[in-house]
């Protein structure tokens, strides 16, 4: 029996041995976790801003020719996934367990679709083609570097977000979350929305701003 796991009132015996073991309540842990996650988000802002700065430094007011339909499609897919994520969170907070799980599943599928859009079509990684636009190559100077760098870093976050969703889904099926205690869902949701917010900036910055160079 460890002192950390014992209830506060019963911790007196252990106090002599280990000192004052403050056992944080769920709400206290929640507060710390929330703060920590948000600080992590702020920290990551500097990574993404660095990438954006690189984009503006190297591209200036130009951009490569990219498939606009594909860009709008991936953006929409990610936005819809974000909606289903928040729907899942609202559902668990109000005890709708089925709705929670279904929404989570939809989020996951949409996230995978986004990856297919970016990594599959836009990168042409699996040789799948979309429309007839010419694909940008990673070695195409600053255009290739920045585009693949930014979408790559973002895709990495999407992949890790998908892992989180999968984890939450599995735990959710086992009944790991309740109306009162679902920090895991909240954390996963914050992360997923965060990935979406990043794309909210990346989309115009990569696809819309500047004059295309042929």
């Amino acid at each position: 029996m460890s002192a950390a796991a014992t209830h506060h009132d019963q911790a007196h015996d252990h106090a002599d041995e280990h000192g004052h073991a403050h056992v944080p309540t769920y709400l206290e842990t929640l507060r710390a976790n929330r703060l920590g996650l948000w600080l992590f988000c702020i920290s990551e802002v500097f990574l993404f801003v660095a990438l954006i700065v690189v984009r503006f430094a190297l591209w200036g007011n130009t951009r490569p020719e990219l498939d606009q339909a594909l860009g709008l499609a991936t953006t929409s897919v990610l936005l819809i996934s974000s909606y289903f994520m928040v729907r899942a969170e609202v559902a668990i907070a109000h005890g709708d367990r089925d709705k929670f799980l279904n929404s989570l599943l939809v989020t996951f599928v949409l996230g995978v679709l986004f990856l297919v859009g970016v990594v599959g079509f836009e990168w042409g990684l699996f040789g799948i083609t979309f429309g007839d636009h010419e694909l940008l190559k990673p070695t195409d100077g600053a255009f290739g570097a920045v585009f693949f760098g930014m979408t790559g870093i973002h895709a990495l976050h999407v992949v890790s977000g998908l892992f989180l969703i999968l984890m939450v889904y599995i735990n959710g099926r086992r009944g790991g979350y309740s109306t009162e205690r679902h920090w895991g869902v909240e954390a996963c949701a914050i992360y997923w929305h965060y990935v979406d917010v990043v794309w909210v900036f990346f989309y115009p910055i990569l696809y819309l701003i500047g004059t295309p160079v042929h």
Partner: protein
Amino acid sequence: MRQLRILFSLGIVWALIGQAAGAAAGLFLVRAIRAAANLPPSAEAELVIAAMFSVFGSLLFSGVLTDWLKWCVGIETPLRHGDPDGLPAWTRYFSVDYNHKVIGIQYGVTSIIVLLVGGILAIIFRLELSWPGEQFLTPESYNTIFSAHGIIMIASILLGVGAMVNYLVPMMIGASDMAFPRLNAFSYWIAIPSAILIMAGMVIGDGWETGWVGYPPLSTIDGSPLGTQLFILGFYFNGFSSIAGAINLLVTVMIMRAKGMSLWRMPIFVWAAIATSLIQFTATQTVGAAQLMVTTQRVLKLGFFDPTFSNGLGWPAGDPILYQHLFWFYSHPVVYVFVLPGLGIISELLPVYSRKPLFGYKWVALSSLGIALVGFLVWAHHMFTSGMADVLRIPFMLATLLVAIPTGVKFFSWVGTIWGGKVTFETPMLFVLGAISVFLIGGLTGPILGTIPTDLHLHDSYWVVGHFHATMFGGFVFPFFAAIYYWYPKITGHMYNERLGKIHFWLMTPGFWLMSLGQMQVGIWGMRRRIYDYDPALGIEFTHALITLSALIIGWSVLIMIYNLITSSRTERVAAINPWGSRSPEWQVPSPLPEFNYYRPFEVVGEPYDYGVPGSVYVRDVPAAGD
């Protein structure tokens, strides 16, 4: 048999095994995939994936991820604490442990070991530089060694900062531990494989030659040694440690302060730790981005920093100066990560040995934040001669000079603290005073580098080398040693050997002065930085010999300290509860502290440095009645 069992219970052993296994797995994976895809073998790609896998393998095998992995599959794990079952108590210092004091000591010891490695490298190339001409190194190995010295010392300093922050902050604010003990352990255990990657870079693939800055195109050009890649990845993974540690610290200070401890009643060191963490958890990301870009440029040919690209369509090419901006946006503020905790230690210890309140507490606290904030606006002063846009030089020059103001506030506050006190000169105080003197040299030689016209001569010269060694020693090394001596009785319960401590001081301080002033002298006479050999016509041979001699003296003095620290913990000299007469909470209870720091929670009822007010106390136990 038992010894073997104990050996294989140690996390550090498993971390090393895991790193080797991960590296091997990564290597063979890339080889197999490339063979299957009919691609020619690529040493670079193998190395990168092997390095990444090795870090992950090290973390996995050491056991620092175990709790989290269990959480992933829905298993709740109580926080493990206390001495390990069936194993000697010392083994917890070599394994994954979640107690902030254990982690602090792990950081500290690792820091000193890494410091020794960096110091030995310094002495090797100092011997090479003692005389003009080629001594015993080749230019390539010289380049590798001085580059490694730089980055290894930085790793050491980051570990040392981690040690001070981890050990001291929860103790000072009355928390039982950090907010996220597992994350805390993670921060430490990822620093180990990344340090190993950096050191491996020296031996694998002919080292590297870029200095610790790793400027492209030198770091990305065809034929640059493979070691560069390991150095960059080691640097990159070390960043995880900084970011995680800083977030942890900020949350801890935000929500785990003792009752009554308002911001203006925190020990001054905590302010420094906050300022440090604010820098660490933000700026580190940009250098991480820069290192990733260099890696992708090397492996995948993404031309972020490659100016030679042209496809005839007017598409933009990369820009090598862009790297310098990203790099210094982190690497300048990180200098303040190194020195702010040290300056915090100075401000923390001076009142104790002067028996007088810290002069201008609020000003000192705000000056830490001021330095941290201004530190974000001055990065391009490392690039005054780089060829960046002229319009940028002037604002960065003015911002750079502004750093002098909060730094000046600190100096004058320290003098103000001493005046009117009753000063004693134990070893920690000597190191504090040494720190002030050395940091003074470092600080005063800064503005001449800040005004561009004078910088045009001194840039990339040995003046710069002297200047930053003085700031690093004055801002980190001396205060770190002061902190070690000061809290040694708290950590071990034993008193260090005062005589040896004083010998250490009286060897190291003049030695350092000589070294730093000598470096500045040869710099102003025309000695360039990072050169393997120099022109005897400059007339700098004698000074160079002196610099080498003083480097040796500093090296020996540090060995004396290590001897002192090791032997003193085995003596019978049990330290008094409060040998320094400090008001700080940790000195009001017997040493060493219990597992969760305090037997009962305390509340803050006074000012931290109210020396000279009879009967006033800083903290007292929370009355048991309400509990």
